[in-house]
């Protein structure tokens, strides 16, 4: 997500609360990845392997995650003008499918298909302190920085 700087002023308590919420949210998200075994690259690759021993688990993870999220979105976000702890919703504003989206999604797909790790599981797997997981995350952050620089130039 390309989020510009947000200059909204918050009272300190609202900031603290939001950070706590973000912490809990991250924890729930991570537990979801762990319980569903999406942190296991093999599980992900076996979902992507439609012509092998297909493991449809990832589809159910997405279906369940999507159901919960969209239910809450329709009833808790759409009818409201602002979230509980802030003055506005920070939602992406772009609506058009452009070249950047298509090229970016393709490159992401290439990388994801190569090892079966996307950003969420990459972070959760850091706690294993395995060198390759750490290397993956460093390369990923570098990729983000290079993309950012490249977008600024062009």
């Amino acid at each position, binding site marked *: 997500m390309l989020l510009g700087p947000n200059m909204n002023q918050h009272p300190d308590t609202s900031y603290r609360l939001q950070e706590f919420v973000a912490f809990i949210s991250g924890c*729930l998200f991570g537990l979801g990845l762990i319980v569903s075994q999406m942190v296991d690259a093999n599980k992900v690759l076996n979902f992507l392997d439609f012509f092998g021993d297909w493991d449809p688990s990832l589809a*159910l993870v997405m279906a369940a995650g999507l159901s*919960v999220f969209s239910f809450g979105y329709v009833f808790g976000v759409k009818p409201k003008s602002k979230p509980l702890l802030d003055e506005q919703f920070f939602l992406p504003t772009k609506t058009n499918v452009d070249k950047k989206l298509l090229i970016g*999604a393709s490159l992401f797909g290439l*990388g*994801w298909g190569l090892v079966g790790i996307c950003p969420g599981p990459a972070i959760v797997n850091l706690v294993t302190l395995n060198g390759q997981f750490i290397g993956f995350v460093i*390369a990923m952050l570098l990729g983000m920085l290079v*993309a950012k620089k490249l977008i600024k130039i062009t």
Partner: protein
Amino acid sequence: MTEFTPFSALLGGVLLGLGALLLILLNGRIAGISGILSGAMQFKNPNAKWRWAFIAGLTLSGFLAPAVGFTLPTQLNTSWTLTLLAGFLVGFGTYLCAGCTSGHGICGIGRMSKRSIVATLVFMLLAAVVVFFTRHVIGA
């Protein structure tokens, strides 16, 4: 080979859906991991803080894994070269398309965003093509 695990897949999906829902209902933010990571690296931005808090929670979940009876994989079954190449592509690509499996796949599609539906179809398709080649063409 891995077993199809419908129950844990659904339960895990519900948990991560709840995590994403909590963040948008209370903070008004999208739980997109790639966006949170790139935003967290803008250290001077006051909005980097909640992103670091999210990342801390995500990391804590990794430590909690054994307590809920789950183990994390101990390694990747792939070479260092591919690991680094894939990591770079994932970072570069998600920055360019402004989202990953979470931001586009869950939150974006959940909001019925056309961009997210297209992005998710594209990265899933490309990933499947790569797996087809590595497992059934090269690895066959």
